[in-house]
């Protein structure tokens, strides 16, 4: 992999992990426009490195929250932090169930079905618009809410549905405070990413060549910095109800995708 490819892929990963634009949807569109082999191929190790970089950027942004959560959790009491951790676990259940039982069904959507990607992007646009319309509250995430947000995360496996967009919108539409919604959305995915990184690393399928080191390092730094910027920016956008810009973008791309698959 070329150094420039690694940096570009790192920046894309860092941005799309947090900004509500659906990386998988754009990847499918990119494949349809440029051809399946036009995009630079990522090795499993590179994917692991980029995911870890975005998880680290989340941890840096929320380091105080994570520190408090871990401190409270290890007191082994039914305190706010333990409840928050349990809510994170509950939110992971739907995506885990989908991953275990519906993997083959989901594969169908990753088979160049551009019309589906377009429709999903339009759904993302509607969700983001509705999230911006929601009133400001100071409510936190409930246990039931955590499960519903988890269901939104499971649906976001589909290409075109943004994970951050779907989960933040679901939380805000449930009446949760906007900043708390963004915080929950970004923290809920960290255990999933770290678990996946550990599973992939220990899976015995990773190999490393010394000449990849510079590209991998550059990709990691690019994803980490882009992730830091995107995470901080996204929290601000959610708080200031400025998701409509992304809603407009997703709507335009979604409509073009639908039109292209019908008339193209």
């Amino acid at each position: 992999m070329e150094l420039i490819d690694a940096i570009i892929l790192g920046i894309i990963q860092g941005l799309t992990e947090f900004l509500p634009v659906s990386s998988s949807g754009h990847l499918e569109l990119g494949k349809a426009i440029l051809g399946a082999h036009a995009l630079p191929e990522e090795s499993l190790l590179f994917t692991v490195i980029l995911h870890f970089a975005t998880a680290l950027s989340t941890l840096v942004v929320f380091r105080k929250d994570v520190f408090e959560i871990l401190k409270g959790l290890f007191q082994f009491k039914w305190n706010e932090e333990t409840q928050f951790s349990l809510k994170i676990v509950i939110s992971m259940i739907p995506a885990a169930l989908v991953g275990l039982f519906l993997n083959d069904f989901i594969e169908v959507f990753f088979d160049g079905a551009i019309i589906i990607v377009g429709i999903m992007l339009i759904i993302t646009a509607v969700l983001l618009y509705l999230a911006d319309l929601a009133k400001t509250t100071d409510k936190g995430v409930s246990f039931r809410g955590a499960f519903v947000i988890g269901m939104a995360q499971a649906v976001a496996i589909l290409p075109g549905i943004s994970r951050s967009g779907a989960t933040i919108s679901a939380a805000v539409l449930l009446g949760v405070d906007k900043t708390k919604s963004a915080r929950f959305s970004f923290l809920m995915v960290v255990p999933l990413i770290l678990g996946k990184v550990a599973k992939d690393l220990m899976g015995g399928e990773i190999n490393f060549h010394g000449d990849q080191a510079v590209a991998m390092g550059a990709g990691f730094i690019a994803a980490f910095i882009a992730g830091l910027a995107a995470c901080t920016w996204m929290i601000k956008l959610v708080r200031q109800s400025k998701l409509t810009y992304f809603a407009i973008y997703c709507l335009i791309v979604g409509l073009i995708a639908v039109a292209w698959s019908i008339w193209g």
Partner: protein
Amino acid sequence: MSKKNKNVQKPTKEFIFQKKNYLFLFIGLAFIALGFILMTGGGSDDPEVFNPDIYSFRRIRLAPTLVLIGLGIQIYAILLNPKKNKE
């Protein structure tokens, strides 16, 4: 006078990480680098010939474990709050 007051009131900007955080970041990096170094090699020079050494204990167990420990140390380094220890 007013200028001086302004200077006094200016909040001092601090780095989010202290010396101890960087120390652990570098220890984590050393583990990751060692893991990757141990992971290298083992490939066959001839594409027609399979070299089982690529799946040796060193490459598929020890090296990823060291990388994983290194990643864990990185997380610890980020979450470490040296100010709390001083208090």
